[in-house]
């Protein structure tokens, strides 16, 4: 695209921007972005001046576009319906649809809350009740977001949402294995105190050396295995969460700035 065509479309967009000041800011921004996208797509194949003029002609004047947008905004009841009396059904549909709350598709505090709470819940696992509360708030915010698509919500739920439960499980296992270690220490003391040789020589204790060793070893190694497994799962989940947060943050660009 050479300077001619760039100037043509830029000039059009500038006029549109000016005209669109009659509209609410977010609507104006959206319209200009849509038209910019349209012009970019329309001139992609042929960027000559002649074609660009043709595209702009077909597009309509900035005044016409903004008038239409104003008309849509003021169009609270149904668009003009055809005469026959029996044709109220789709007017009713339109009216019912308009009665619904107007969702904002822009990034809002809800999205920030969702991400912050879900991450906070897994990081702040030590403060368990607080973390649990944050986790619930985060999940609800995620689910009720109006910016994210269902797919994005599912992604967020499966990655960020699982962080807290996983951290909770890890914490519980850590506590249990710590208690096992203390128990082990106790067992060791008993084991050492009544050492194998003395047992064997006594001959009456069932506790032979192999059993003792397996008792002392099993609990240690099994919690060790579980923690290792959790660490691996945690690492994978962490990577998944980083990817998820990155994707969810893409929604910030969803209402293009002018």
């Amino acid at each position, binding site marked *: 695209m050479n300077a001619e065509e760039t100037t043509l479309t830029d000039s059009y967009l500038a006029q549109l921007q000016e005209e669109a000041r009659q509209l609410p800011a977010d*609507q104006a921004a*959206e*319209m200009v972005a*849509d*038209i910019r*996208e*349209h012009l*970019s*797509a*329309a001139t*992609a194949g042929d960027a000559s001046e002649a074609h660009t003029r043709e595209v702009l002609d*077909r*597009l*309509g*004047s900035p005044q*016409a*576009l903004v008038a*239409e*947008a104003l*008309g*849509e905004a003021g*169009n609270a009841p*149904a*668009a*003009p*319906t*055809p005469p*026959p009396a*029996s*044709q109220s*059904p*789709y007017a009713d*549909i*339109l009216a019912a*649809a*308009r009665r*619904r709350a*107007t*969702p904002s*598709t822009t990034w809002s505090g809800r999205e920030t809350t969702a991400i912050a709470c879900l991450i906070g819940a897994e990081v702040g696992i030590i403060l368990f009740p607080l973390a649990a509360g944050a986790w619930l708030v985060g999940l609800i915010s995620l689910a009720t977001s109006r910016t994210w*698509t269902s797919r994005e919500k599912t992604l967020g739920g499966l990655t960020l949402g699982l962080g807290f439960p996983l951290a909770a499980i890890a914490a519980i296992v850590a506590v249990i294995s710590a208690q096992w270690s203390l128990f082990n220490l106790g067992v060791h003391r008993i084991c050492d105190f009544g050492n194998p040789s003395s047992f064997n020589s006594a001959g009456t204790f069932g506790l032979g050396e192999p059993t003792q060793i397996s008792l002392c070893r099993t609990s240690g190694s099994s919690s060790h295995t579980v923690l290792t497994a959790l660490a691996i799962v945690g690492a994978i989940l962490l990577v998944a969460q980083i990817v998820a947060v990155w994707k969810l943050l*893409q929604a910030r*660009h*969803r209402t293009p700035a002018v």
Partner: protein
Amino acid sequence: MAPLDSAVTQLRRGALEYCVLALLADEERYGYDLVTELSEAGLVASEGTIYPLLSRLRKEELVATSWQESPNGPPRRYYRLTAHGQRALASFQDSWSDFKNSVDQILKGKDRR
């Protein structure tokens, strides 16, 4: 496009959004594709006026949009029909059918009284 009499213009306006929904019934489309198809079908005078309509349909949750990467250039808006939009379209198709038949009958001069 030649100037139209206001009744037909009104009909067009009323039907236009359902035409948008119908175009999305089978597949998701880029905004630009929707606009050019409607324009080629002669349903709009100026292509740009479809964008406010699309914006309203989005607000009313009859359509939903997502951003798709495009091979040449910035991400583009991709439109799809929502469940709500599907129901609205189905309802309109019935209404339109009845309306069309009623008007046709009268225009053909059949006495309905």
